[in-house]
């Protein structure tokens, strides 16, 4: 395994960074946040249609570029650094991989190309699960009726649901199989926009009451099997870890810039060793988290669902913890201004806590790693 970034990969990262510097600055993010949250539509259109970021990891035969996980995770890192208000993660890291892993002909010939071409945004109404075995947690049911199905159930929190064009809903059939349904906005869905502390990623509650879905609304090939679900989820979890990594770097840099200017006791506060050491420790955590994200991304295409699971769980645990620590240290080291709305640390702080809980909090991922390397608790 080679972990050097290629020249192309570096170029993708650097160009994405430059683009978001210009188009998703703190001012842009604040425009969305001050309006109560949502998607930066202009930004999203450019990213999805003109820059083709959603196409990265979609196979070529489905209209994508067929690149490895590394490119996508570099993009997510850059998005995280800018807190970019757009549904790239839900579209490209949650929905697309699930369609790639489990989709039928329609999914491959219509939906994936539409995502790759930036025509639609998409999300998945997963329960807050981290592991495929928790497919048990899926509470939406699908009852065959005539040619089609009737869907029933609620999913309390779905990322980017309010603006999503396409909503993928895993639902349980009477025989226990988990099927995948693709719902669009023409159906009478009940979507409640949730008010969130972190206004940079919209969340919604989905409620389906005896919803009639035609046969073509079902887009899985043979149901969502455990290992396919595992790989699709692992993609999402790793994408999130990369995003958290980028956010951590940005908030660390913000802090370093501030403490390098602020003078107390006749010297910059950055010159105090207590502060240097705290920043240096964050830097160690950052190096670890980034190495795990890059390692997991580089190995991703070769791993089974189970291997990928442990690797991405590792990246996710460290990236989650890193981002939270980096954000809380940022507030602390900014002093009083760290507590204000005007300075940016709170944006990262809120994102840190919110993203920590998406697709399973670190404790669950630690449990999964322990199960993988020690064996199940009960059998040990």
């Amino acid at each position, binding site marked *: *395994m*080679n*972990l*050097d*970034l290629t020249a192309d990969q*570096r170029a993708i990262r650097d160009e994405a960074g430059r683009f978001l510097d210009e188009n998703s600055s703190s001012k842009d993010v604040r425009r969305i946040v001050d309006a109560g949250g949502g998607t930066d539509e202009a930004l999203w259109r450019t990213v999805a249609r003109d820059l083709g970021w959603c196409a990265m990891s979609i196979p070529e035969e489905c209209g994508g570029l067929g690149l490895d996980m590394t490119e996508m995770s570099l993009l997510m890192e850059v998005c995280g650094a800018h807190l970019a208000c757009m549904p790239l993660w839900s579209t490209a890291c949650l929905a697309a991989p699930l369609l790639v892993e489990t989709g039928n002909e329609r999914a491959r010939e219509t939906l994936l190309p539409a995502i790759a071409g930036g025509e639609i945004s998409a999300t998945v109404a997963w329960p807050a699960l981290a592991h495929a075995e928790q497919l048990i947690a899926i509470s939406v049911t699908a009852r065959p009726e005539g040619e089609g199905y009737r869907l029933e159930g609620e999913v309390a929190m779905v990322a980017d649901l309010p603006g999503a064009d396409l909503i993928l809903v895993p639902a349980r059939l009477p025989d226990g199989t988990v099927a995948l349904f693709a719902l669009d906005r023409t159906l009478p869905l009940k979507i409640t926009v949730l008010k969130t502390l972190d206004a940079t990623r919209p969340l919604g509650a989905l409620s389906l009451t005896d919803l009639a879905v035609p046969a073509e609304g079902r887009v899985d090939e043979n149901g969502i099997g455990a290992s396919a679900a595992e790989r699709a989820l692992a993609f999402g979890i790793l994408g999130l870890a990369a995003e958290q990594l980028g956010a951590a770097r940005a908030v660390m840099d913000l802090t*370093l810039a501030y403490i*390098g200017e602020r003078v107390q006791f006749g*010297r*910059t506060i*950055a*010159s105090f*060793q207590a502060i*240097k*050491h705290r*920043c*240096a*420790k964050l*830097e*160690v955590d*950052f*190096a*670890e*988290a*980034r*190495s*795990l994200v*890059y*390692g997991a991304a580089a190995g991703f295409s070769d791993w089974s669902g189970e291997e990928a699971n*442990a*690797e991405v769980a*590792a990246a996710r*645990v*460290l990236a989650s913890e890193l981002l939270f620590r980096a954000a809380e240290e940022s507030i602390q080291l900014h002093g009083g201004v760290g507590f204000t709305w005007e300075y940016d640390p709170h944006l990262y702080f809120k994102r840190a806590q919110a993203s920590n809980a998406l697709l399973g909090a670190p*404790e669950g991922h*630690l*449990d999964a*790693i*322990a199960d993988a*390397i*020690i*064996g199940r*608790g009960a059998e*040990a």
Partner: protein
Amino acid sequence: MSEAEGIKALRTEAAQWLAEHLTGKYAPLRHRGGSGDGDAFPELRKEWERELASGRWTCPGWPPEHGGRGLSIAEQVAFQEEYGLAGGPGRMGHIGEGLVGPTLIAFGTDDQKSRFLPGILNGTEFWCQGYSEPSAGSDLGNIKTRARLDPATGDWLVTGQKVWTSLAHLSDWIFVLARCEEGSVGRNGLIFLLIKIDQPGVEIRPIRQIGGGAEFNEVFFADARAHARDVVGQPGDGWRIAMALLGFERGISTLGQQMSFAQELDLIIEIAKENGTALRPAIRHRIARAWIGLRAMRYLAMRVLSTDPDGDVQREGLSYKYHWSNWHRDLGKLAMDVLGPEANIISDDWRRERLQQLFLFSRADTIYGGTNEIQLNILAEQGLGMPREPRGTSK
């Protein structure tokens, strides 16, 4: 043969050779002699060096003209991993092979190369590192040992004291950083000398360590003689040579070290399953975290050793020492907690003994080679561009 095939062939050759040779009288050496455990089976480990030399496994990264195999970094890593997997003992020749040799190849005279490299290569001459002094630990520039020119011979007469000198009692030569310019301070006015240990002006006193053994020593010099031809670089240029020497440790051996770290973790998991601690959620999480830390170490090392590290990688590489040493120390504590009250009982159960050694010896990891606090200073200053520590005025 492609690079990947070459590496595979090398792995097979090394694994086979080690399986054939690290047996019989050498079997007790497996997993022994690591950092802190340097005084385990010293004579047998010296013999082991000659055994390695007979298979051309000493100095494999040195260029062929100096007797090495000229292995690439990836190949050296592969060898180190096989060595670690086989339980290869801590290398008595490490300081010569990894530090002195590369320094002489880069800065030494032809005469020095021809006199010193063969002894290192053949496992017949052993080296130790004379940097630290009682008043120059983290603050290495505060060196007080003096080197005085003997005008009659051009030799240097050295007076002063070194301390914490690993393996000095088992070495033939010591390289010494000393002050050669009267009144100079800090990094200026230093000289890098090669000094023969077996001479009247050199006295070695072992220091008993945390584990009861004595790997390191005090070394006293009283007009000890370093020959004129045994100065490396120019007098006054010692700091530069001394730092370059440290730079040769690019961390290739650390990938081999990770193999033994992984074995230690496996051992802890094995015992935790046997004694039921593996059922405790808090222990399960600590084991999971240890596994995560080891993965991070592996990927970080691979990035640092990459052929084309970018600026980010170079900065992140500064974290490596801090990460592995603290990880290893925590592993020692985890091992003891998994053993429970038995951890305190000395017995000849080899597994327990190995974990007790891990617990004690890993405390050195965050001290030598730049302490934790110094690593954090380096990270903050060189990695993050934060202001340098002010110097005080106390003596």
